[in-house]
């Protein structure tokens, strides 16, 4: 009488023992929500990119298909080139150079620190990261304010409008301040995996700090560095928070791509064009991700050992 195997299939095919119909019924609500809020908008954006759909006016009621017109327009648009270039600068300076470098330096300096100092620095850095972006944006607006800003009071430079005179520098510094915590935490965790005996060995042979980093630390945490760079590059590339500080201005001087799309699609109302730019941005993200993943895989493939019996 006792039947050990499930009547609907083997245990490996159906570990929960639910059967196909019930399993589908259980996961259906989640799939529906994903379809409604993720898959459909993505496909809809793809479709919109081939139309002249606008928020208002005649084209809002009766959008016409325009084929690849939007894409050719965007690619020839100097504003798009300008915006793309600003985004590359923003990612390079604030994420790759700023967050990753500063995060590593802090993690490296704190590696042997214990107790209240480490906890204090970690808490301060993390605070910047966990506060909602609207809150930190307001804090920065208040700090940079021309009339009664904290920065002008500290530097004794009354009347300097930082966000207007140096908009890119402001958002770069802002993003470094904001995102360094993530890199620091990731590198801190990675550094605990570096065998102390290898560092001590390098030290005993007279390796200086740079040689210890180059010969022991970096080879060990290379995967962590690449993963971190991938994540922060993509996050920074898609970051919309600068809009809350400079609104892309003045005169488009800090109009990075997400802001440019927002201005095009929702401010100017050219939804079709905005959708086309969105797709281009997605493609750029994909290329960036593929490059990093390729680098990661190269390392694993390159280190494959020939197993030899002792």
């Amino acid at each position, binding site marked *: 009488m006792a039947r050990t195997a499930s009547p609907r299939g083997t245990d490996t095919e159906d570990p929960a023992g639910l059967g196909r119909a019930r399993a589908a019924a259980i996961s259906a609500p989640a799939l529906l929500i994903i379809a409604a809020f993720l898959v459909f908008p993505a496909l809809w954006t793809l479709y919109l990119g081939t139309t002249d759909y606008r928020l208002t006016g005649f084209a809002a009621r009766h959008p016409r298909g325009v084929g690849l017109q939007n894409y050719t327009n965007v690619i020839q648009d100097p504003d798009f080139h300008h915006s793309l270039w600003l985004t590359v600068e923003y990612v390079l300076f604030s994420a790759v150079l700023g967050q990753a470098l500063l995060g590593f330096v802090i993690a490296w300096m704190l590696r042997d620190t214990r107790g209240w100092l480490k906890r204090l620095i970690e808490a301060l850095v993390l605070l910047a990261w966990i506060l909602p972006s609207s809150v930190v944006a307001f804090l920065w607006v208040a700090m940079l304010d021309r009339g009664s800003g904290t920065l002008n009071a500290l530097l004794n430079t009354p009347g300097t409008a930082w966000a207007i005179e140096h908009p890119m520098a402001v958002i770069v510094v802002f993003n470094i301040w904001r995102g360094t915590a993530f890199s620091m935490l990731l590198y801190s965790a990675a550094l605990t995996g570096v065998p102390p005996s290898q560092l*001590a060995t390098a030290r005993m042979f007279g390796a200086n700090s740079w*040689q210890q980093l180059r010969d022991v630390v970096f080879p060990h945490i290379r995967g962590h560095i690449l993963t971190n760079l991938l994540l922060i590059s993509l996050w920074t590339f898609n970051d919309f928070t600068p809009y809350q500080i400079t609104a892309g201005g003045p005169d488009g001087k800090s109009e990075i791509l997400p802001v440019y799309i927002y201005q095009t699609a929702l401010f100017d109302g050219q939804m079709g064009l905005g959708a086309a730019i969105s797709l281009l941005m997605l493609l750029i993200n994909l290329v960036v991700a593929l490059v990093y993943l390729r680098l990661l895989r190269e390392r694993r493939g390159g280190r494959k*050992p020939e197993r*030899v019996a002792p």
Partner: protein
Amino acid sequence: MTQIRTADLTKTFADAGGGVTALDALTLTIEDGEFFALLGPSGCGKTTLLRTLAGLETPSSGAVYIGEADMTRTPAGKRGVAMVFQDYALFPHMTVTENIAYPLRVRGVPKAQQREAVLAAAADLGLTGTDTTVGLLDRRPEALSGGQQQRVALARATAAKPSVFLFDEPLSNLDARLRLEARTFLKRLQRELAVTTVFVTHDQAEALALADRIAVMQSGRIRQLGTPREVYRRPANTFVASFIGSTPMNLLEGVVRDGRVLVADSEIAPPDGTGERLAERAAVVLGARPEYFRVSPDPLDGAFRGTVEVAENLGSSLLLTLDVSGTAVQVVVAEEDEPEPRATVWALPRADRTLLYADGELVG
């Protein structure tokens, strides 16, 4: 000529509970060319002492002299000291050649000279190929066995041409069979290089087998300093007595009366040479190694009379645990003398090998 000397070396680690003293005013001289063991249970301060000699720890007070120079504040890389760690600490992303060349590369030695030194060091340690074996120089550490990894680590240390070698638990990462082989190899290597060598171990057999002299440590102090023979034959206190020896020494509490030692309801002859100067003492501890007993099924004068409780086979011999009026006494007998279980036997300790302790210290 590289002698190592420490003077009142103290190291205290800050801790929540006030601090832990790892080294307690330790003064020690290690002679030129000596193979020196720091032996003790975990937490005795032996590793801290080794790391302080290496320059990886800074002492709280006291001084370290290597050769003639005071090196107490000299950074690790400038002491002319090479250390081999328990896990060998080979760089996993470098080949064997690159690993061995590392100390030279750091010093900026020209490539051709590096190559020469690597080949010499590798040949010394049997890492280059012969007619029948394959060379290991182009492999990465992960493709090597534990014993091979150790030899690469040793080759790297010798390539640095240090005046002192420091080994941290050099054999504990090897499996039992390989350990004996590596032990012989290590001793021969040290003899050939004749470089002052200090190593740390928790295994008394390793220390006895390898070292010219042993410092037995406990709680940051040296409890006994001597040759393996001295430390084994005449442990200076009950701590060393219980620590040295693969079968632990019998330490039996008793009293001295009329020139005899009364222990476990038996009257035992005192250790040789103590005879007349043996004062009446209220409490003593008689120390006798299980190996130094004569065991007989017939009554012996001045022996322990006990029943065999447990017999453990040690290969060529047997370790018997005897019940002597409620006290456990362990003795070793040859394989052909195995008694019946629960048999009554007489065990006579060799008077030239028994020891007497009072207040934990050796008195005779």
